């Protein structure tokens, strides 16, 4: 019998290809029933250790949550600052705790999730403090940030090559963040648009350009590596 995926010739004892883990299968030829070379593997299929640890972490978060709720309610029986604590803890958990449940967390899902939670948190602060900056400032800024970070994480996750190109693009996109911030600030808080953001924009643009140039030019990359190695 041959493996349908990698083409290796397999002994009749094999039920799964030892090289590529493809199930041994042939539509016409019936595989002979040959006893295996070794007794079956009796180990439990998956390890539950990480699940237990993650459960404990989740439980431990409730302790500061509960104590801060009690101490916030203590003086006047109303919630004053507990919302900030709860929001910050939830945010931290979404950033670090939640992905731990997965073996290989996909940033294309988790990074937008984190930003969605951040936006909700900001909206809450805006609401509690009667601020008027959420829709015109915090939301678009966070969305832009979410977009470029998600793109960066997803590209790094799926692509094995061209890391320098990805980082170069990211740095340039980061440069655009500053004019955006200045614009939003001036709109929200009635500040004068003086164009300070042009400086970081140019610096980031140049830096990104250098990275992309290095990505494209192998000789320049080698020269830089040779001089800057550590």
């Amino acid at each position: 019998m041959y493996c349908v995926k990698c083409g290796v010739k397999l002994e009749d004892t094999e039920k799964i290809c030892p090289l590529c883990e493809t199930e041994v299968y042939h539509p016409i030829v019936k595989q002979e029933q040959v006893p295996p070379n070794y007794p079956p593997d009796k180990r439990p299929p998956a390890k539950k250790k990480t699940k237990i640890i993650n459960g404990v972490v989740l439980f431990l978060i409730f302790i500061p949550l509960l104590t801060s709720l009690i101490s916030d309610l203590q003086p006047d029986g109303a919630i004053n600052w507990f919302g900030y604590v709860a929001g910050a803890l939830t945010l931290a958990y979404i950033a670090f705790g939640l992905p731990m449940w997965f073996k290989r967390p996909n940033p294309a899902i988790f990074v937008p999730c984190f930003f969605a939670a951040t936006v909700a948190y900001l909206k809450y602060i805006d609401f509690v403090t009667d601020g008027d900056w959420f829709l015109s400032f915090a939301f678009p800024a966070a969305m832009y940030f979410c977009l470029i970070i998600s793109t960066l994480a997803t590209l790094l996750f799926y692509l094995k090559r061209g890391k320098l190109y990805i980082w170069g693009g990211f740095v340039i996109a980061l440069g655009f963040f500053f004019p955006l911030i200045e614009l939003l600030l001036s709109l929200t808080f009635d500040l004068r648009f003086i164009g300070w953001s042009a400086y970081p924009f140019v610096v980031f643009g140049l830096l990104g350009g250098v990275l992309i140039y290095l990505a494209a030019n192998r000789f320049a990359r080698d020269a830089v590596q040779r001089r800057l190695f550590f």
Partner: protein
Amino acid sequence: MAKSKKNPLRWVRLDNAAKIYPAAMRKNWSNIYRQSMTLYEEIDTVVLKSALEVTVKRFPSIAARLRRGAFWFYLQQVEAAPEIQEEKSHPLCYMSEKEMSKYAFRVIAYRNRIAVEFFHSLTDGTGALIFLKNLVAEYLEQKHNISIPFEQGIIDRRVPPKSEELEDSFLKYAGRVPASRRDTNAWRVPGEKEPEGFIHVTCFKADVDSAIALAHKYGCTLTVFFSAVMMQALMNYQKELNPNTAKHKPIKLLIPINLRTLFKSETLRNFAMFTVPEIDARLGEYSFEEICKAVYHKMGYELTQKHMSAVIAKNVNDEKNILLRLVPLPLKNIVMKAVFDRSGERKSCLSMSNLGVVRLPEIMQKYVSRVDFILGVQATAPYNCGFLSYNGKVYINLTRNIRDAGLERHFFEILRDMGLEVTVESNRN
């Protein structure tokens, strides 16, 4: 060999190469390997036990247990044969010091197969093969009432062992001038470890004549050829994981060399040395021919009496140092383990151990269908490889303790592209 009246059991000092292995042991790893013979019939464990009793008496330095002295470990002959064990889902389960203090070897029967697993301090692959051959010969004689001639490593099991078999040939053949050596670390195959010490064994079987024809095409022997294939596979795998060859680590193999033929020794204890061929992808792309040459010339240069006795001398000199010898054993272990961790296996990706052509007396060949040589994985690196040829077939056994079979895939692809047909089997089911 000493024999006291109080305790009639023989004991031996560990030979020069054997000394490092007890010191290198750790919580879930010790240096063990397996040799097995598969018959055409199911194994009768009652007869096997009785054959083992006879064999154990004839090989007192191999059928032994590991004990602690004040300054060194030593081996003591076992009084009686151990029980025949049942096979687990993988070979070479962890052998603890506690287990070794009773028996530093195991005999395992499964279906048609008789397997013996040895702690490396007992003997090397060549010595172990003699033990296995005689165990199986004794088994066949008792089971089938046949008589197997004393040839091809089969010896008279009713006479006491010869003193040549028990000698530490390292001490005997050490040269006057010690060799010096400094090495760089080799690439370590990455991967997620299997839980509970599970070991994957993947066996590649090929026709020996086709393999030899292919080796001759590149002007080399089977050992050199398969070592070169392994190095190429390691190089390709490293390149798959990291396309930037400027950042590659050197590829090195540890190839054990049997010193018995070189020095005309008859010892049944450890008497092997290593040669470590190396290629470095940072220097540029290697063709397969170049890898063959790198291995071939390295072996040719080192496989001489002069070079080897210098290497032995270096090891023996350390052992002879009176100050070092007077250090109590626990302290010595710490030092030796540190030395092992810093040098030893870090200097190679894996061992590529060729036991050579296994020959059996004609009458025995009718009963034995195949022979295997399986090395345990290294202490910190995940792979190892043992191979031999028997009855027109090469059996290459790759062991690993990580999940992914990346190296095996590359190894297969190279052989496939060269046109050598291999059949693969494993302990997965």
